């Protein structure tokens, strides 16, 4: 593989990650690698948001009707994308609620 192709491949492993914190009504954008796990992305989001993790926080997709990602935290972004669990690199941190 020549140097240019290698550089292109490496570039493709880096993506822009967007995370909303619903409780604080804030959002951050930061670079990340598609080899990072969802847990690592979630951890980094707190650093970027400058807030502490709250006991009932959950990580979810940011789509039209968001889906919880709590069962997939060990997956990398690449794996989650390839398995159709995420469609993009947009997430939000929400609070678990109680009900029924």
């Amino acid at each position, binding site marked *: 593989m020549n140097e240019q192709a290698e550089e292109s491949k490496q570039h493709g492993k880096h993506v822009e990650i967007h995370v909303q914190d619903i409780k604080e009504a804030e959002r951050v954008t930061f670079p990340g690698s598609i080899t990072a796990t969802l847990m690592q992305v979630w951890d980094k989001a707190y650093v970027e948001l400058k807030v502490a993790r709250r006991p009932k926080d959950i990580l979810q997709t940011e789509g039209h009707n968001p889906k919880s990602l709590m069962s997939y935290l060990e997956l990398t972004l690449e794996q989650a994308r390839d398995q159709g669990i995420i469609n993009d690199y947009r997430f939000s941190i929400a609070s678990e*609620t109680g*009900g*029924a």
Partner: protein
Amino acid sequence: MARANEYPTMDLEAGAAALEEDLPRVLRMLGASMEELGWSRPNKLTLLIPLSGVYQGHADDYTLRLGFQAYRTWPPSAQFVNPQTQSYSYPQDQHFVPQLTSGECRTHAQYCHGTKRIQLICCSATLEFYEVEHNVNSEHLWSETDNFWTTVNAIKRAMGSFYQGRFPKHGQ
């Protein structure tokens, strides 16, 4: 902070002021305007928000009405309404309510509590949940640092994974 087994107190001025404060914050977070999101604010205490769900390949549209009469000490009132009248009458409007069956958020087209008969979005982020004195774990109690997007998000998350179609049309 909301408390279990305590009936919510209304404070219309505080509710309107809190909404004035939170609305631009939430819109900034979402990166969109009211118009772009299809929201409307028919009066200072009410927001109308369009939602949708897909069940068996069919998309259904809904209108969620949020009321801020006890906000932010208590969560917003949340009711699915007839989009024409922007109100809800049981049983003729029950098909404007989505069937949600999440452990965090379950809908009842009519819920009986004493002499009251109301639509209930059974979720600790709605005012009606406290009005019917529903059991709640302390960690799920609404906090004054929450905002109305917590409520909408909880409902949208249930719409994404636990939507079972509309309640049937009355008489069918």
